[in-house]
């Protein structure tokens, strides 16, 4: 177990600051389509920040996080159906719901080990997926439009994409700060310790199970808020957000981004969204490129690690 040395963390923080500044400036000049892309990248970044805590820090793999994304998206959609609604209230509801769902799911699945744990996350997420699919009054399999945008404290209505993007950036900054504080906290250190040797943690009188449930809960809240913002950005939600392909994509973000830096996760989000949207301009077959990239990353981790070392400051990422 090693914590990143402070100057590298400092460098990572500088890069994160530059990215955020760049995003702020970009909001002013981008057109509607490009704003959507930027929004997707930032939302995936936010989700990856939470998942990094669970997967890289606490060492728990989940193939079920799409369930939280869909939960967040559906709650955002329900608020939107009411007409005028408040962003903060909506996100608070998402956070509470995903914290409850996340701690329940975590408490159940963490009683199992290894492959079985993975299957358990998948099973619960599939049940949630079929649950959303059966909501016929909410469009069933087709989902429904999220047409009303929220307002903030009754002062500003986020009726344009620019305003929504600014709100997303503010939430992202909060998310970056919270994730950073958790990593540097006692809980963050405990997560690393649990990942490396749960029995030693237990011998100190701390329950490794409890630490992992917390990690699960935190990542669920991040993913849920990301899902709510995603529904607002795309003005649409459907059960597909909860499918296991989506769960795979979310884990891929952490794998590509590495375990330690925040800027690495940003690059991963850029890569995934870039492949989905950029390659899609030339061919429909973007999953081919994504699949090849993931396979290459798994088969030759050292080469891509070196690439990333050159491309990003901070430490070489390692996901497992």
């Amino acid at each position, binding site marked *: 177990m090693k914590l990143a040395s402070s100057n590298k963390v400092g460098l990572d923080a500088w890069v994160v600051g530059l990215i955020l500044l760049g995003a702020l400036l970009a909001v002013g000049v981008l057109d509607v389509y490009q704003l959507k892309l930027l929004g997707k990248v930032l939302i995936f970044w936010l989700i990856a920040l939470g998942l990094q805590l669970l997967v890289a820090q606490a060492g728990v*793999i989940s193939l079920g996080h799409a369930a939280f994304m869909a939960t967040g998206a559906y709650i955002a959609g329900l608020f939107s159906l009411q007409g005028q609604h408040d962003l903060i209230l909506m996100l608070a509801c998402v956070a509470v719901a995903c914290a409850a769902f996340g701690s329940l799911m975590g408490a159940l699945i963490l009683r199992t080990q290894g492959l079985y744990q993975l299957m358990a996350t998948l*099973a619960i997420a599939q049940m949630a997926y079929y*649950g959303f699919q059966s909501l016929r009054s909410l469009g069933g399999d087709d989902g429904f439009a999220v047409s009303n945008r929220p307002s903030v404290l009754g002062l500003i209505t986020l009726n344009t994409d620019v305003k929504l993007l600014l709100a997303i950036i503010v939430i992202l900054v909060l998310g970056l700060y919270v994730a950073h504080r958790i990593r540097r906290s006692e809980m963050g250190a405990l997560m690393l310790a649990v990942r490396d040797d749960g029995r030693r943690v237990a011998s100190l009188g701390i329950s490794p199970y409890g630490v992992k449930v917390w990690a699960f809960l935190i990542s669920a809240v991040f993913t849920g808020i990301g899902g709510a913002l995603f529904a607002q950005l795309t003005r649409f939600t459907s059960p597909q957000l909860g499918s296991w392909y989506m769960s795979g994509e979310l884990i891929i973000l952490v794998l590509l981004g590495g375990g330690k830096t925040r800027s690495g996760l940003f690059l991963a989000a850029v890569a995934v969204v870039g492949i989905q949207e950029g390659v899609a301009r030339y061919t429909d077959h973007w*999953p081919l490129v994504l699949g090849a990239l993931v396979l290459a*990353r798994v088969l030759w981790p050292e080469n891509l690690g070196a690439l990333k070392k050159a491309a990003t400051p901070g430490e070489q990422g390692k996901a497992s």
Partner: protein
Amino acid sequence: MSLALLLEQLLNGLQFGLMLFLLSVGVTLIFGVMNLVNISHGSLFMLAAFFTYSAGARWGYGLGLLIGLGGIIIVAILLEWLVIRRLYQKSHLDQVLGTFGLMLIFNELVRIIWGSEPIFALTPNWLSGSIQLSENLYYPTYRLAITVVAILAGLAIWLLLSRTRIGMLVRAGADKRETVEALGVNINFLFAVVFVIGAVLAGLAGIMMGPLITVESGIGDPLLILALVVIVVGGAGSLKGCLAASVLIGMIDTLSRALVTADFAGGAGRAISSMSVYLLMLVVLLLRPQGLFTR
């Protein structure tokens, strides 16, 4: 529901369970012997169906069958040699993501070669009628035929594993891999054989189920998830557990779809029948994490 209808659903459930068994055998053997989680196993199911029915449309069913099985053997050998072999030593996360990537690649390759529209899966003429099982129960010949083939394939794999030298090595490898290796067995070759056997059985299931489902890109994936459920319920690496769990899950899945109507509980009927299998798996995981049918 009449008795005949119930009987028909039971037969359908048994048959679906046996198909699941053919698909799951590969996954459970590969996990039991090589400790590898293979998400892309469903792609072999899909590829065999595509090989068979695109060749079969041109040159007839018999040749299509040969091309389908032969093609899947070649694909499996190449896949094991190029990719799977490098994944054995990796962590489960890397295995899941690597084979997830493979699955995406295969799905897209199929879409590139055959397009997104489903292709037509013909059945041979002599299997197209139905057979009268009782006074008012007619059952399609094709479904009966594939049930018989699945039972024969299951018997063959059981004989292979329990009565032959290679089967003995596979079972030994599942228990103590290092010891088998220390006894001078070429473990790489053994793994390759197990992988190809699993692929052929998955391919056989894909070919036989082709006419019953729509043959399109990604058809193997939902079944693969069910196969993973089978492995958890049956216990990894156990052939008997795999068979029992496959039939159990095939029955539950088929019967719940038939018995629980869509309007049940305010539109939640479909959800309940889709969820039932996962609910079973969750209960098994929490109460008997080692699987229902292992000692």
